[in-house]
């Protein structure tokens, strides 16, 4: 049977990784994730720009998938995890928190979708000055935010939601 670290130690690591993910989410959404050059003219686009372009191109279904995976899920994940970690020392509704944790854990990896789309577009659209897709700095920040959020969820064991933590007064602060 695997032995988990003490709850307080788990929460400290989980908080650290989550805060780092929150920090990286800012440049991930502000900086361009890719730049498209067509007939010599370049246009950089952020995650939100890409979603809007899909809507304008008449592809609302795909736009909604990208919106959910790339914008909604990363923000939802960090907020839900923060609430779970905060409540963990004195959790009075462990069932709801465990269910929320499981949901966040399951959907987390799907946020990598945008990173894969950019990689694919950059690899296949390479026609010199005619048409070219270059990755933007936002993609590094976005990938880091996704991975850090996943690692944060890994660092936390929901078992601690079901036990009374004697040193719970710290409310999860490192």
């Amino acid at each position, binding site marked *: 049977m695997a032995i988990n670290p003490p709850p307080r130690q788990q929460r400290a690591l989980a908080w650290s990784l989550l805060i780092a993910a929150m920090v990286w989410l800012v440049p991930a959404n502000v900086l361009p994730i890719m730049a498209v050059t067509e007939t010599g003219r370049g246009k950089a686009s952020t995650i939100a720009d890409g979603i809007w372009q899909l809507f304008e191109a008449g592809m609302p279904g*795909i736009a909604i998938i990208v919106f959910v995976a790339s914008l909604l899920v990363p923000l939802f994940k960090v907020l839900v995890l923060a609430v779970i970690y905060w409540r963990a020392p004195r959790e009075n509704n462990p069932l709801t928190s465990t269910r929320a944790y499981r949901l966040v854990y399951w959907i987390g*990896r799907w946020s990598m979708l945008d990173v*894969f789309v950019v*990689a694919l577009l950059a690899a296949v659209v390479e026609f010199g000055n005619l048409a070219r897709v270059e990755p933007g700095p936002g993609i590094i920040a976005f990938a880091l935010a996704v991975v850090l959020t996943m690692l944060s969820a890994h660092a936390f064991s929901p078992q601690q939601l079901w036990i009374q933590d004697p040193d719970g007064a710290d409310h999860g602060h490192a």
Partner: protein
Amino acid sequence: MPEQKGVESMSADTLLCPDCGTQLAVPSRRARGAWRCPCCDSQLSGAWTLRPDSLLALTVATAVLWLPALILPLMRLENLGLDREASLLDCVLRLMEGVYFPVGVLLLFTLVFMPLLNLLSAGRLLWAARGHTPSAQPDPFWMKIYRQSREWAMTDIFLLGILIAMTKLGDMATVTPGPGLFCLVVAVFLRLIVETLAQPDQLQRLLEARNGD
């Protein structure tokens, strides 16, 4: 359910819920569906009987498709008389150029390295479950690799990414699916079947039961 923790099988007859820590006896009745924790409603395990022979065959079929899925073109793009193809490996290498090297490494990890480890660990554990290894003792190393690789292998998400990229490129150029895409779709589909049916805790219990015989 958190994959890295999994259902911790204390013995072939006992389960420990990874989410709430409740200890449960393994139900004796085999059925369809899954066992769920009565305390936290976590899905503990599949209730079906594991068939290592069939699952190993599917794993070998996935392994055969894996190399062409990596190196054959996923799609072909034609624009104003020019054309270009890209494979999964090209996507990884493209991002490994210059300052985007860390993202390229992440792609290498999630699209090449972890799926490969997933295949190897599934094959190793299923082979052991058939009773072909001298000691059928569950190998903690391969079990851990199998648990982790199920989450960090992201070829299924990459497939959705291909669909979105093809839709985006539809306006810009003519897009034709390549043979690599076919291999990747089938490989991912087979991998999902194996992963759904061969859940780590089930494999571990089967190996423990074999060892106890």
